């Protein structure tokens, strides 16, 4: 071998070795820094999610194999009953125990809201994101971020923000406290060192003239007052946003790769309910807080819901959002190959309303025409949300079905829309959407829930029947019964039941675990549903697994 070739080969392998060893150590070294602030922003999110991961995702051999064999990865933060235990990401709220209407309307609460009995002192201007606003201090010394509606669309963004926060909170996510406030311009006073980043992008001292100029672009109600959503700045230390990938290895409460957390995947379903397309890493927040025992806890929040429901960035929800990603390669390729003659669902929906938002400005573009729960898209193609399995979807759908019509009405009420017709419209649309989502995900899975063993009877609820998606009679539950013997497993029999209860008296033994694989057939269809796997012993239910 020639000397230069030998030299090149040597150099090449040294580089490869360095590359493979230094990188993991580099990553490890970074993680040992305690709760380093994780910075994110819209542009970074767009690049990472819409460009980088879209192309490098399939270079990861693990994911490539899963994609080729269409193998779904089961969520890893579920317990043996296929539920998500409480964590610093998620607390089972309405799905576990119904919140009162007052609790639903109130949402997460630390204070009664900004104290409007005295002036609000502007301490900073906020231009991050698409809805600019002010940071203010009230008389009590609590700090809030005030965000406003776009001109001509009073109530749209502010109500969407508050209503969105109520839904996510009741579902179980951590959200800051949001309130609608209405105040006179005279309530706003400029703090001594208040600055604002104005349209120029330069930070300047906030002067009365600047404030007056700024207020010109904020809509006023019929009495000349300003309406804002006020989110209370959380107590604790801001540690930036959390990533939808990986985990903070130095956080003892963060033990599962976020990509495999069910509640993160299920943001896909919950966001489809309230049409919140702006789910991204930069709309999350990690706060280092002190818990009731005096321990430091890193809690993970969702923030910014002002593009929920019919709201968009400046003038209502753009028609393509929720149907397409910001850069949607698949949809673009379909349009390219069909020479533009294939009408995308959003184009059809938009054409049918004459390319004008048919709902009032306070509501924006929100209805259920062509709403397909399986095709809803948030703004960016987050792979964790794409990893959503049938079991994850079913879990989310049953939480959604826990909300009654009155519950929805209470949460929409928090948006304080002036016209009762606007509130009624949103409530009706959300009710209808709730059913569309639940029906879709119940159809995807075997919607059996609340398994229990009393004596020898394994009982359960068929949620599709309970919520009226299937007729009360005619469903058949086919259970293959297996016996676990040490490491092996043996099929014992197949049981059929017309009612949601299975008698196991011949199969439960003193020291064995019986496993049932239950599939459901519906009246008029020979097709069997996906399975639910239940492990039972005389001690009771040991494990429940809905098929992914």
């Amino acid at each position: 071998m020639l000397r230069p070739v030998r030299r090149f080969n040597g150099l090449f392998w040294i580089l490869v070795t360095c590359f493979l060893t230094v990188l993991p150590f580099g990553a490890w070294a970074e993680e040992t820094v305690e709760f380093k602030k994780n910075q994110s922003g819209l542009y970074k999110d767009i690049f990472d999610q819409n460009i980088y991961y879209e192309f490098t995702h399939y270079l990861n051999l693990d994911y490539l194999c899963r994609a080729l064999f269409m193998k779904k990865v089961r969520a890893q933060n579920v317990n043996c009953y296929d539920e998500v235990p409480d964590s610093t990401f998620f607390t089972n709220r309405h799905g576990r125990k119904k919140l009162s209407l007052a609790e639903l309307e109130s949402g997460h609460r630390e204070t009664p809201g900004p104290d409007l009995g005295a002036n609000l002192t502007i301490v900073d201007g906020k231009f991050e994101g698409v809805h600019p606003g002010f940071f203010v201090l009230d008389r009590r010394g609590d700090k809030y971020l005030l965000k406003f509606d776009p001109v001509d669309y009073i109530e749209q963004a502010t109500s969407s923000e508050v209503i969105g926060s109520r839904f996510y909170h009741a579902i179980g996510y951590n959200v800051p406290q949001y309130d609608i406030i209405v105040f006179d311009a005279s309530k706003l006073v400029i703090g001594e060192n208040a600055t604002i980043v104005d349209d120029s992008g330069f930070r300047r001292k906030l002067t009365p003239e600047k404030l007056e100029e700024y207020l010109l672009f904020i809509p006023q109600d019929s009495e000349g007052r300003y309406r804002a959503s006020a989110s209370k700045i959380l107590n604790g230390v801001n540690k930036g946003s959390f990533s939808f990938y990986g985990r903070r290895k130095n956080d003892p409460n963060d033990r599962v790769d976020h990509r495999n957390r069910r509640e993160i995947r299920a943001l896909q379903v919950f966001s489809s309910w309230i049409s919140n397309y702006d789910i991204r890493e930069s709309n999350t927040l990690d706060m280092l807080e002190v818990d009731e025992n005096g321990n430091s806890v890193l809690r993970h929040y969702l923030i910014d819901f002002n593009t929920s429901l019919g709201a968009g960035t400046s003038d209502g929800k753009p028609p393509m959002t929720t149907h397409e990603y910001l850069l949607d390669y698949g949809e673009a390729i379909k349009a390219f190959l069909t020479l533009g003659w294939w009408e995308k669902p959003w184009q059809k929906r938009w054409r049918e309303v004459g390319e004008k938002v048919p709902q009032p400005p306070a509501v924006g573009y929100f209805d259920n025409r062509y709403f397909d729960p399986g095709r809803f898209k948030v703004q960016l193609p987050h792979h964790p949300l794409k990893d959503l399995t049938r079991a994850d979807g079913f879990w989310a759908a049953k939480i959604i079905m826990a909300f009654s019509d009155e519950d929805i009405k209470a949460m929409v009420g928090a948006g304080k829309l002036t016209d009762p017709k606007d509130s009624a419209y949103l409530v009706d649309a959300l009710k209808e959407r709730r059913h569309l989502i639940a029906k879709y995900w119940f159809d995807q899975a075997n919607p059996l829930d609340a398994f229990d063993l009393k004596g020898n009877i394994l009982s359960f609820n068929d949620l599709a029947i309970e919520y009226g998606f299937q007729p009360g009679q005619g469903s058949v539950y086919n259970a293959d019964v297996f016996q676990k013997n040490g490491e092996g497993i043996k099929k014992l029999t197949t049981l059929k039941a017309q009612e949601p209860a299975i008698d196991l008296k011949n199969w439960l033994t003193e020291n064995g675990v019986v496993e049932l694989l239950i599939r459901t057939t519906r009246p008029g269809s020979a097709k069997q549903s996906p399975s639910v796997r239940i492990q039972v012993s005389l001690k009771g239910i040991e494990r429940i697994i809905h098929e992914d």
Partner: protein
Amino acid sequence: MNFHLKLLKVAIGSIIFCLGAGVVAWAQDLTYDRYAALLEENPESSTAKKIASHFLVYPFELVKWPVDQTLLYIEKHYLEKKVEWIYDKIQEQGIKPSGTIVSLGGLGGGLEVDFVRLTRLREHYPDLTTRGWYQWTNDVNMEVGSELGLQRIGETGFRTIGNFKYSNRPEEHFYGIGPDTSAGEGTSYRMESTDLETLFGYNWGPSLSADAKFGYHNVNITNGEDGGRGIIDTVFRPQTISGLAGDELIDLKLELQRDTRNRSENSTKGGLAKFVWSYYEGVDNSKARYFKYEAEMSRFLRLGADRRVLAFRLYGEHNDEIGDRYVPFHQMAKLGGYGAYPRLSRTLRGFDFNRFFDESSALMNLEYRYTIWEYRDFKLDSIVFWDEGQVFGEFSDFQFKDFRESYGLGFRVSLANVVLLTAVVAHGDEGTNLYVKTGAPF
């Protein structure tokens, strides 16, 4: 007593059971706590396995980090807002910078100064136009010019404008004259021209206008800079190419234009019709004397929706020498290339620019444009096109078999219907061309 004790035990037991059940289960009274923190053990993959499955991604991680940091820096310091604000402020002063992409290596830029704005006189003289510009594109051209005039005289539809322009094109291609020239005989020349022109026109409303122009043009032709190409007067016999030594020309031009397009770029309806008649006379040593006739018609047809547009353009040009005088080759009809400024030849995308020269040309461009992606004001259009064109001398030389066709497809990114970038692949019988450019040819 025993009975009472038993009853008490049962009652206490029931209360404890109910309380317990109430805590652990909702509604269904389950016998277990379904939300218990009984997580299954999911051991993480080993580092070796992670590296093995991830090793193809590592090189890209090296790109991701700096890009992420740059984007965070831009957002954190509002750099995009600052740039936009600075650009707007400069424009408010009457100064308009611009950038051009002619090819992957042909980047350019320019500056236009509106002196009326610069001197804050726009309010007093809304119709006065006094501007100067400088435009440079690598290897393509350098142009400097100025303009003075009135876009509207009084309250009438009349307007008058005079302009001066100097341009230097270092690498204009030339393959000979006529439809049967060889692609292998490519040469290049440098063309320096100085133009003085005055215009007097009338507008009948926004769509119809007529202009009369009188101009002086000084054209110098020297050897081109394009390395590897033959020098024009060694490949071709100089006496067969009229105007090889350059020309001084004066011209009188009459132009009638009807423009019903809804936008100057990315139009979805209407069209443009333009007829030009010119008389050119060589002065000083130039023996040129000829008439030039040009006709152009384009139409934009919306096919059921704005996202589908069929665009076509017809163009014809004839230069007719008078007596024993000639038409200089540099003023002849030219076909080839993408066909947009700063090039001078008309759109025949499967061929090199300036590929065909002759006294006359006939050209048809057909484009099907359709939107494949849009987000707010951003749009990505795909285009499929077919160009058909030929050059010829006299009308009697016109033959259908001389038509040369090219076809291809491409993509255009636009913002608020201003084309930001075009990428087009075109194929003709002399090969395939890739264009990456700003702007659309029509």
